[in-house]
C-alpha cells in the first residue's frame, strides 16, 4: 500500500511546494506527474500479482479507522488519472505561454490529482464525502481560472456542488445513525430494506447524480466545462465527473439491499435513455464547439448509467467490465476532444462550430485528434469506445434485451451525427486562401496523444478484460 | 432556571423586530450587539442548568467575538466621506 500512499502524497506535497515557490511549479508538476504514472503502473502490477491490497489508516480497527483498498478496478482508475494528468500537464506546459494560463493552474491540477486518487482508494462513506467536497472545490477553483467570464458558471457549479454534497452527507448521516458504521465492507449486507435505508439511499444517489451530471440533473455542466480553459475542461470532463460515478457504483453494488435493486435499475435506465438521446440532440443543436463537447459528456455518461442499470438488474460480469471500459475510453477520448477543440479555438480564434469550416487544412493534426477521439466516442473500431460498446452488446445479447440493443444503435447514430457535424465541416474545402497564422505543432501532437491512447486501448483489450475479470472472480 | 432563559430568548425575539424595521443601519447593528450580550447570558444559564461547565468556554468565546466583531464590521462598512 505504500505505492498507493505515494500516489496521493506526492501530488499533495508537490502542490504545497508549488504554492510556496511558484517558480518551481512547472518542474514539480512534470516530476510529480511522471512519478505518479510510474507508481500507478507498479501498483497495477502488484495488484495483478498479489490481489487487492488494504490499509487501515492509523492502524486502528475497521470500526474506527478509514479503510483504503486497492483492487484491480481501483488500480486501473489510479493509472488512468495519473496518465491523463501527465498528458494534460504536458499540453498545459506546451501552451502556457501562449494561452496565458494562470499560475494557480499547477497547484490546483496537482491537488485535483491528489483528491481523485484519495477518492479511488477510500472505502469509507464519510471519507468519500470529504474527497467529493475536495474534488468539487478544486474543480470550481479550476473553472474560475478563465477570469471574469467564468465566474457565473463557476458560482453555479459551486452552489450545485455544495447542495449535492449536502444531500450525500444527509444520506450518510442517516445510515450512520441507523447502523453505526461508515466503513463500506463492514456495512455490506447489513442494510435492511426499510424506509430509512430507502431515504438515505435516495439522498445519496440524488447528491451523486447531481455531482456526476447525470441526465436530468446535468444543467450546471455544459456552461462550467465550456467556460474553463482547455486543459481544465479536459481534466473536468475526463476525470472529475467519474469520481461521483465511482461512489455511486460502490454504494449500489455493495450497500443497497437486494429489494431496492430493481427499482433503482429502472430509474437509472430512464435517466440513461434520456441522457443518450436528449443530451445527444442538445449536443447536435448547440452552436458552440466547446459546449458541443460538454453536452457530449452528458450524453456519453448515459452509457455508464445504462451499464450500471444492467449490472444491478442482471448481475452479469460483462456489464461491470463494460462500465469501466466506458469510463476509461471516455476519459481518454474526451480529453483529446477538449484539447484539440481548445487548440483550434485558441489558434483560429473561433468559438462556433460553423467557423471550423476548413479546419482540416489549417490544423490537420488537431482535427485528426478530434476525429480519432470522436470515433471512439461513437464506437467505431478500432478504439476503446468500440471495445466497451462491443462488450456491452455481447452482454445485452446474452441477457436477450433486444429493445436496448435498438436504443444503443440509435444512440450511436446520434453521437455519430454530432461528431460528423464537426468533422464534415472541417473537411469542407471552402476557403482556399491560407490564413495568416502559423499553428504550433507541439500542442497539437500533445492533444493527439490521448486520442492515440484510446486507440491503443483496442490493442490491449485482452489484458484489460483480464484485469477487469480478475476483479469479478 | 430554564424559564429565565426562555424569557431572555423572548426578549431577543422582541429586539429582532428592529432588524426588519430599521430604519438605519445602526439599528440593525444594534440588534447584533443585543444578540451578543443576551446570547452570552443564555449560555451562562445553560451552563448552570445543564451543569456543563464547558459551556462557559462557549460564553467566553461569544463575549470575545461580541467585542471584536463590531470593531471589524464598522471598519468594513465605513465609506469615504
Amino acid at each position: 500500500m505504500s505505492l498507493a500512499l505515494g500516489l496521493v502524497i506526492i501530488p499533495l506535497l508537490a502542490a504545497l511546494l508549488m504554492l510556496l515557490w511558484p517558480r518551481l511549479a512547472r518542474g514539480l508538476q512534470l516530476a510529480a506527474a511522471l512519478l505518479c504514472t510510474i507508481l500507478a503502473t507498479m501498483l497495477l502490477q502488484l495488484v495483478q500479482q498479489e490481489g487487492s491490497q488494504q490499509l487501515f489508516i492509523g492502524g486502528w480497527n475497521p470500526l474506527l479507522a478509514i479503510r483504503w483498498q486497492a483492487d484491480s478496478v481501483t488500480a486501473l482508475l489510479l493509472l488512468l488519472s495519473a496518465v491523463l494528468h501527465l498528458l494534460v500537464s504536458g499540453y498545459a506546459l506546451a501552451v502556457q505561454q501562449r494561452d496565458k494560463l494562470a499560475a494557480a493552474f499547477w497547484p490546483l491540477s496537482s491537488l485535483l490529482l491528489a483528491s481523485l486518487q484519495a477518492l479511488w482508494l477510500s472505502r469509507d462513506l464519510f471519507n468519500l464525502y470529504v474527497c467529493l467536497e475536495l474534488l468539487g472545490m478544486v474543480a470550481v477553483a479550476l473553472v474560475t481560472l478563465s477570469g471574469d467570464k467564468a465566474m457565473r458558471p463557476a458560482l453555479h457549479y459551486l452552489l450545485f456542488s455544495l447542495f449535492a454534497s449536502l444531500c450525500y452527507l444527509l444520506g450518510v448521516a442517516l445510515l450512520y445513525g441507523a447502523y453505526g458504521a461508515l466503513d463500506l465492507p463492514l456495512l455490506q449486507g447489513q442494510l435492511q430494506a426499510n424506509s430509512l435505508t430507502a431515504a438515505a439511499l435516495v439522498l445519496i444517489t440524488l447528491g451523486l447524480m447531481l455531482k456526476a451530471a447525470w441526465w436530468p440533473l446535468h444543467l450546471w455542466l455544459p456552461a462550467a466545462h465550456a467556460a474553463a480553459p482547455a486543459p481544465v475542461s479536459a481534466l473536468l470532463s475526463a476525470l472529475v465527473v467519474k469520481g461521483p460515478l465511482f461512489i455511486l457504483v460502490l454504494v449500489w453494488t455493495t450497500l443497497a439491499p437486494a429489494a431496492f435493486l430493481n427499482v433503482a435499475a429502472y430509474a437509472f435506465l430512464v435517466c440513461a435513455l434520456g441522457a443518450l438521446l436528449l443530451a445527444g440532440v442538445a449536443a447536435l443543436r448547440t452552436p458552440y464547439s466547446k459546449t458541443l463537447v460538454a453536452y457530449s459528456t452528458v450524453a456519453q455518461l448515459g452509457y455508464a448509467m445504462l451499464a450500471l442499470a444492467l449490472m444491478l438488474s442482471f448481475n452479469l460480469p460483462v456489464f461491470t467490465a463494460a462500465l469501466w471500459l466506458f469510463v476509461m475510453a471516455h476519459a481518454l477520448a474526451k480529453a483529446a476532444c477538449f484539447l484539440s477543440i481548445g487548440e483550434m479555438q485558441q489558434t483560429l480564434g473561433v468559438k462556433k462550430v460553423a467557423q471550423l469550416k476548413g479546419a482540416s487544412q489549417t490544423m490537420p493534426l488537431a482535427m485528426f485528434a478530434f476525429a480519432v477521439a470522436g470515433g471512439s466516442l461513437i464506437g467505431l473500431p478500432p478504439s476503446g469506445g468500440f471495445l466497451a460498446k462491443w462488450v456491452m452488446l455481447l452482454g445485452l445479447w446474452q441477457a436477450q434485451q433486444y429493445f436496448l440493443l435498438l436504443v444503443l444503435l440509435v444512440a450511436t447514430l446520434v453521437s455519430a451525427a454530432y461528431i460528423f457535424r464537426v468533422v464534415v465541416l472541417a473537411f469542407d474545402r471552402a476557403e482556399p486562401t491560407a490564413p495568416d497564422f502559423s499553428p504550433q505543432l507541439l500542442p497539437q501532437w500533445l492533444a493527439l496523444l490521448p486520442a492515440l491512447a484510446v486507440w491503443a486501448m483496442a490493442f490491449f483489450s485482452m489484458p484489460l478484460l483480464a484485469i477487469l475479470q480478475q476483479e469479478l472472480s | 432556571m430554564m424559564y429565565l432563559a426562555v424569557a431572555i430568548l423572548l426578549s431577543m425575539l422582541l429586539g429582532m423586530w428592529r432588524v426588519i424595521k430599521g430604519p438605519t443601519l445602526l439599528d440593525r447593528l444594534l440588534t447584533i450587539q443585543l444578540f451578543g450580550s443576551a446570547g452570552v447570558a443564555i449560555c451562562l444559564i445553560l451552563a448552570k442548568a445543564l451543569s456543563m461547565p464547558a459551556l462557559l468556554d462557549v460564553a467566553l468565546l461569544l463575549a470575545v467575538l461580541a467585542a471584536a466583531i463590531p470593531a471589524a464590521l464598522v471598519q468594513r462598512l465605513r465609506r469615504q466621506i
Partner: protein
Amino acid sequence: MGLLLFDLVLATVVLLLAGTAIFSRNLTHAVMLFMAFGVMMALAWARLAAPDLALAEAAIGAGLTGALCFTALVRQPAALDSKVATSLLPICFVALITAALLFSVWQIPVSPNPALSHEVSVALPQSGVAHPVTAVLLNFRSWDTLLELLVLLLALLGAQQAQSSLTLYAGWSLSLSWSRLLSPLIILLTGYLLWRGAAAPGGAFQAGALLASGLVVLRLNQQLTWLSWQNPWVRLAALSGLLVFVLTGLFSLLWSSSRLWLEWPTAYAGAVILGIESFATLAIAVTLTLLVVGEPTEERADA
C-alpha cells in the same frame, strides 16, 4: 417542562431567523439575520450538550461569517434588492427531501449503536488525548482532518481568483487601540482553547477561527500590512498546518515500528497531536483572515 419550553422557543426562533433571512428582500437585512442565526445555532448546539460544535459555530457562524458577508456586501452596488426565488421546482425538491428526512428520522434508533462508542472508549487511552472528539479528529480519523484542512485552503485559492481590490480605511484611534487591547486577550484565549482541546471541548478549528477574528480586526484597522498572500512567510504559515501534518505522517511511516500512515506511537501521541494542532491553528487563522480581508491594494490613511 422548562427545558421543553426552551427547546420549543429556541427552535421557533431559529426557524424564524432562517426564514426571514432567506426571504428578506434586502441583502443587508439578510446578513444581519444570518449573523443572529449563527448566535442562535451556537445556543442550540450548547443546548444539545455539544460544546465542541457550539464553540465552532460561535466562532464561525456568529463571528467570521458576518465579516465575510459584509465584505461581499460592500462590493455590491447600492440599493441592491435580491430577488426572492419564486420558482416552484427547487421548493418542491427541498420539500421532498425534508419529507423524506422527517419520515426516516423516526426510524433511527433512539440509543445509537453501542459498538462504536465502546470502541472509542477502549481505544481512547492509546490515542494520547483524553477528549474523544479530539481523539477522533486527530488520531482515529486524522486523514479526514488533513483533507478538510485542504478544503479550507482550496476555498482561499478559489476565492483569490474572484477577488477585486477593496479600499481599507485607517481606523479611528479608538478602534485601533481597542483592537490592540483585544489582541493579547485573543491570543491568550486561542492558546487556552488549543490546550484545552486535549482534555475538553476546544481544538485547532475553534482556536484558529478565534485567532482569525482577532487578525481580521487588526488587519481592517490597517495593522499587519505584511499579511498578504504575496508574502512567502504568510504563505508558509497558511500551508504550515498541512505541511506539518503530512511530514509528521511521513515521519511516522518511516520511523515508527509498524510503518503505518498517520499512526502516532502511543507514547508520543499527545505531543504529536498538540504539535499538529498548533500549526493547524496558525494555518486556519491565516487562511480565514486572508479569505475575509482579501488583498487590499489600496489603503487610505484618513481619520
